């Protein structure tokens, strides 16, 4: 690595003060303004292109058309209803997947026999695309809520399980020596070293799981649903209602943002010791 590259790397890691940092005020405001204006600019360009017929509004719609559809959807309560339906499924599915994921992941990380027993099963079933088992889930759990919750749960489960196990297995052996040298019992070792040591990885798994949950909700609501944001998208597809489709996409984007914010918030409380 040459000197310039090294310098660039350090700038990327925030170690070297760049010119901007010496005049933090002006440039700071400018940068904020820039990140606020750029999406707006994109919307304006989109609107103009639509207005002058450069893009086909029947396919790409336009910000103003979407906005005109969005307001009545919101005020009628329809959008809120569908959103809440989906949120309920996501949260339930997330919990049903994450809780056993953490418990089994911890057990596999802590007890070699459990790992030996379950690892082959996990290794073989994990790569199966979750969408591929949806029909099976529908046959087993029927067309009701259970099948949707289970579809999400199964996606979340594997990510949380694998990350939790890795979190336990990757704890620095030095910490285990410390616990052992002070005479910690097995139980004391679990509560004072294994669990706190694995927490950062557990949260990494939960965040990945949340991403998957959002992906799977759309698929789960494709079949045999009567409500939900995912259902709205498929319904708009059937009706060729591009504006409604965009409105649902906006809701999904917001949901993703909110869920990851909530997880970050919980992480800050549960892992106050993490160096951010």
């Amino acid at each position, binding site marked *: 690595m040459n000197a310039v590259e090294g310098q660039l790397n350090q700038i990327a890691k925030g170690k070297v003060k760049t010119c901007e940092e010496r005049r933090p005020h002006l440039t700071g405001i400018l940068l904020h303004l820039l990140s606020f204006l750029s999406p707006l600019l994109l919307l304006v360009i989109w609107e103009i292109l639509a207005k002058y017929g450069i893009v086909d509004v029947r396919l790409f719609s336009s910000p103003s058309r979407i906005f005109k559809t969005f307001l009545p959807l919101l005020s009628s309560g329809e959008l809120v209803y569908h959103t809440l339906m989906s949120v309920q499924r996501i949260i339930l599915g997330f919990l049903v997947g994450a809780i056993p994921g953490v418990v089994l992941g911890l057990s596999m990380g802590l007890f070699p026999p459990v790992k030996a027993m379950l690892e082959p099963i996990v290794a073989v079933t994990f790569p199966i695309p979750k969408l591929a088992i949806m029909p099976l889930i529908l046959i087993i759990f029927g067309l009701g809520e259970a099948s949707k919750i289970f579809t999400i749960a199964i996606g979340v489960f594997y990510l949380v399980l694998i990350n939790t196990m890795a979190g336990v297995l990757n704890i620095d052996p*030095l910490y285990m*020596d410390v616990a052992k*040298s*002070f005479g*910690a019992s097995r139980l004391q070792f679990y509560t004072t070293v294994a669990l*706190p040591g694995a927490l950062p990885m557990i949260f990494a798994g939960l965040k990945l799981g949340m991403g998957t949950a959002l992906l799977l909700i759309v698929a789960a609501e494709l079949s045999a649903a009567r409500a939900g944001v995912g259902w709205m998208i498929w319904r708009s597809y059937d009706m060729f209602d591009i504006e409604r489709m965009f409105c649902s996409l906006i809701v999904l984007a917001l949901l993703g943002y909110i869920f990851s914010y909530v997880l970050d918030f919980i992480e800050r409380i549960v*892992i106050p*010791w993490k*160096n951010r």
Partner: protein
Amino acid sequence: MEKKEAIRIENLTKVFKSRSSEVVALKNINLSVRDGEFLAIVGPSGCGKSTLLRILAGLEKQTEGNIYIKAKDSTKPLTAVVFQGDAVFPWMKVIENVEYGLRIRRVPPHERRRIATSYLRLMGLENFAHYYPHQLSGGMKQRVNVARAFASDPEILLMDEPFGALDEQNRLILQQELLRIWEGSGKTTVFITHSIDEAIFLGDRIVVMTAQPGRIKAILDVDLARPRDMLFMKSTPQFAELYKKVWELLREEVLKARK
């Protein structure tokens, strides 16, 4: 065991076996550590110093030989270790780290907080009790490490190059602080180091080990009065003489280890 003995090591041998190789880490170690003594061990890297300490701490089992550690008080733990490297738990606050040994022994919360606080004060960390380790400098973390070992009040203190990763200034300060606390506690201590200065400054005796397989090459007495002061000590002829002796013994081994 004799009356004034705290540790006796007899014919200790440790072999690490794996499918393809066999490493003799320690061979026929015979050593007796006196009650209340500060024993410094120096030796070339890889000669088995850490292995010896880990066996004393019960973290590793010897292949052959016996170890006796005298327990004067059955309520105290036999040993406490200050490990090489950053062994402070990042998920516990400074005070919780220092309390750890007491918590494991189920000392009531109030009592252990009192004890831990007094050691934090001794180490000049009382204002950082509720900090997390990532908020501390390397020198401060190592203070926490030392305080944690002292607070658990073991029969024997074991330290494995505790200041090895610190810069020169921090090392000097911590050596002085360790000496002050140790002189007040009278604890039998086995201290591993690769610094000759440190061994002379801190030790009552210095054990020089051979390159792999680790054996005891020589044991030297440090006839320097306590309490000691590093600056003063370094200017004495005894220090220079002892330094030369240890270095000559070590030099042979370091050169051997390089071959």
